[in-house]
């Protein structure tokens, strides 16, 4: 039994829903109680999908439990087939139905429907959302492609074509920027000289899945979801799979080189181009302030690893912590952390992540929706790099993470919360200037008496709940208090907090000018 405040991943059947909802002509019959229908809102509210997910829930109740709940499942499956006329049905159970053991797999076999019915066994008490999506995608692929498998020792015959073709595997509904990454990768592969054969599961039909083996290779776009299926396709049909996820400039270059090698295409011209603005923006002088900023990174394995490389190599940040909730890919994250001289945090316990961020006090947090909340509470800037995300992370504009345009987007997204950067220097330089004195209103506001309003100052203070109310905070000498006021308002909260913490730890009753500067020296890097 695990105490869970927030969960990074949903249960595995939500992963199956992400696959079913991404596809066309697929319907999922889920043996589940009524409350489990909440999952619909993930798609209709968070992703703003216009259609309900193609899922029929049996919504059995306590009074059904004595009777024949398996019959209920059957009836729901027949009803769903009749109403939605899908080309393929998935049948499975959620956590509660798993306990009553109605054997959805067995039921699926007896339905006798004129379309393929794929049973899903997703152990809810061991596995989670991404695993569920991966397993579902693999089961679908296997069910629809196995009959084409070549005999042992023989090779699979692919049709003739002018350019090499690949499948893009892994994008699903509710994926972080999957929609735009498909477009970006399609453009990139086209520039390399590779055509897209099938994108799956996003917008794919059952017939498309059956065509997967005819591609020359697979691009594993989302390793957490496509990994299992790609391995099987490689084993069964001799289809190679890419290993690099093209997030960041360096990784995109590596990806181009990998694809070039796979297809025997010369990619040197493409590699020589500076196709992203990130490298120059990072080298430009105004980015000096980014140097050595201490960042904390947490997310799914793929995005966390990519972010760590980008942060270290492409922004010049110092990565102070790296972690993931993807236990299945823990090894890769550990290796990435080791390269940075860190020990990875592998956990799905939000409280562990919170504790680590609190202890490390980074200057920027790159994380999921959950870390956004932690960062907000601590008053640390934050950018979202990985699922789970909220509605604002499905932007209207084109904003991929992959490829060169993805790198541009990442540059803007990460720098935005730090935007004070350049201004930070100027403010530091001119802090004695009357314009930056406490009472001064921002220049875009009208001058006059209202300038004394404490609005500006109030903002950062509101964000910070006192760390521990019952501990008596040390008092400030008036001298130290005056000095504190000279610190720009947007870092003043942090200075106050650090100094108080410093004083409390040392049992100092009063904060003097000395204490203030001792604390500054202590916390300065």
């Amino acid at each position, binding site marked *: *039994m695990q105490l869970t405040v927030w969960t990074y991943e949903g249960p595995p059947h939500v992963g199956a829903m992400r696959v079913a909802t991404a596809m066309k002509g697929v319907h999922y019959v889920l043996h589940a109680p009524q*409350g489990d229908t*909440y999952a619909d809102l993930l798609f209709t509210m968070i992703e703003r999908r216009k259609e309900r997910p193609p899922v029929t829930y049996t919504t059995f109740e306590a009074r059904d439990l004595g009777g024949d709940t398996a019959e209920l499942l059957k009836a*729901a499956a027949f009803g769903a087939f009749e109403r939605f006329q899908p080309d393929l049905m998935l049948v499975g159970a959620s956590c*509660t139905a798993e306990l009553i053991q109605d054997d959805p797999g067995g039921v699926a076999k007896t339905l006798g429907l004129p379309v393929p019915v794929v049973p899903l066994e997703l152990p809810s*008490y061991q596995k989670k959302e991404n695993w569920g999506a991966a397993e579902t995608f693999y089961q679908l692929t296997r069910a629809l492609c196995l009959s084409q498998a070549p005999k042992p020792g023989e090779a699979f015959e692919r049709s003739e074509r002018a350019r090499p073709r690949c499948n893009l595997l892994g994008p699903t509904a509710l994926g972080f920027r999957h929609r735009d990454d498909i477009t970006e990768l399609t453009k990139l592969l086209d520039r390399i000289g590779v055509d897209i054969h099938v994108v799956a599961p996003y917008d794919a039909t059952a017939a498309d899945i059956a065509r997967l083996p005819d591609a020359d290779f697979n691009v594993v776009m989302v390793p957490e979801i496509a990994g299992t299926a790609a391995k099987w396709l490689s084993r069964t049909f001799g289809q190679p799979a890419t290993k690099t996820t093209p997030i960041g400039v360096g990784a995109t270059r590596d990806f181009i080189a990998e694809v070039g090698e796979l297809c025997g295409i010369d990619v040197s011209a493409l590699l020589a181009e500076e196709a992203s603005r990130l490298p120059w923006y990072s080298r430009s002088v105004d980015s000096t302030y980014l140097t050595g900023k201490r960042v904390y990174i947490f997310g799914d394995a793929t995005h966390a690893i990519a972010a760590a490389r980008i942060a270290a190599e492409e922004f010049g940040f110092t990565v102070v912590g790296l972690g993931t909730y993807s236990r299945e890919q823990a090894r890769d994250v550990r290796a990435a952390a080791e390269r940075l001289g860190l020990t990875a945090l592998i956990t799905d316990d939000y409280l562990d992540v919170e504790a680590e961020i609190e202890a490390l006090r980074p200057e920027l947090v790159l994380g999921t929706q959950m870390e956004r909340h932690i960062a907000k509470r601590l008053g640390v800037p934050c950018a979202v790099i990985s699922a789970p995300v909220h509605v604002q992370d499905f932007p209207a504009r084109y904003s991929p993470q992959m490829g060169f345009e993805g790198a541009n987007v990442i540059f803007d997204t990460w720098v935005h919360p730090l935007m004070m950067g350049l201004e930070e220097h100027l403010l530091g330089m001119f802090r004695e200037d009357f314009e930056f004195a406490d009472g001064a209103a921002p220049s875009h506001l009208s001058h006059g008496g209202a300038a004394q309003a404490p609005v500006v100052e109030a903002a950062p203070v509101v964000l910070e709940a006192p760390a521990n109310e019952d501990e008596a905070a040390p008092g400030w000498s008036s001298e130290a208090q005056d000095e504190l006021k000279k610190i720009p308002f947007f870092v003043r909260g942090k200075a106050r907090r650090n100094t108080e913490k410093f004083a409390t730890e040392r049992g100092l009753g009063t904060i003097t000018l000395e204490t203030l500067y001792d604390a500054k020296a202590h916390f300065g890097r």
Partner: protein
Amino acid sequence: MTAFTGQTRQDEAELRSPAAPRPVLKERGQREVFCGLTGIVWLHRKIQDAFFLVVGSRTCAHLIQSAAGVMIFAEPRFATAIIDDRDLAGLADANDELDKVVDRLLSRRPDIRTLFLVGSCPSEVIKLDLSKAAQRLSKTHMPGVRVLNYSGSGIETTFTQGEDACLAALVPELPADDAPSLMVVGALADVVEDQFRRLFDAMGIERVDFLPPRESTKLPGVGPNTRFLLAQPFLAETARCLQERGARRIAAPFPLGVEGVTDWLWAAAQIFGVPRDRFDATVAPGRKRAQLALERHREALSGKSIFFFPDSQLEPPLARFLSRELGMKVIEVGTPFLHREHMAEELALLPEDALVSEGQDVENQLDRCRDAAPDMAVCGLGLANPLEAEGVTTKWSIELVFTPIQGFDQAGDLAELFTRPLDRRARLAV
């Protein structure tokens, strides 16, 4: 859409029983409603020193955080003890595990005075006895922390029934008290509670208690001289438990809209012997303000048709308010469960031609909604955007549970919840 016959759990056309002379369409099929765990989202805000620990699966944890949505708090007073494989292997083990989780939790939160263990479908199916666990844990943690339990499972409770189960679990804890008192039952926003308290004060009703209280340690007394008013329509079990303790329910419509609030207050006033003129003088300013506030909305809503999908059991009083005070045309009033006794006053006030449906078969109901092409549909979060995409203006029902809508001074806000989606539609030219 063609007639649909594949579903086995067909609509049962329903019968006029003498108690409810109105025909009710009863449906069984796929429900598209949250389970009772959802109540935690507002209950933990209301009872400020209580913690809600769901004993369930990852699905349960995911449901609560999804339902809480943007209302994420730094450290919420709810969490889930997620049952895993090892717990399923042996029950004794599960109890030890639960004890450990509770210890960890309570040591983190010394401010907690009441801990609710909230049962879920998985905990019910594996027959994890949470009432025993609560007794055991109470012994360990009393007097600092009282441990209670209730079920919010989806196989037993629908959405707001979670609050019912929670309050019912509090009833046995209420101290016995023979003094005459009025108890207002059902979670209300603090601001609404204060308004009602002022009104009862002005009428001269001396002792008025609210259940749930804001602090779990200040439980109101109950006894044969307690008369209670339901502030929410979904409290069947709580009412039954209170009646077992001798308290008597005051029959009334629910306090939504000018009419609802007036009748609700008057029902109590009569019992406590408040003279009509004193009552009238007390409610007059509030009534006037509410009527004024509704004026503007009547213009926007009058003649517009509305269709309710079942969600919170608030649907009948809402439909009554919208039809009688704002002139809306009610097509269907879906409710997950219809308590004929508690709802008698409301049903009597509903327009004759409104179809009342109980339970749900979401696909059939969507067909009816499409056929009726209402000006507005009130539905859950899973259905709202798909209906909007089909051209139906919607109001999310969950907001009606999270927003203060009861009382005179909220009547305008309540109406506004319905005018805003229509207003939005009218403004948009894209």
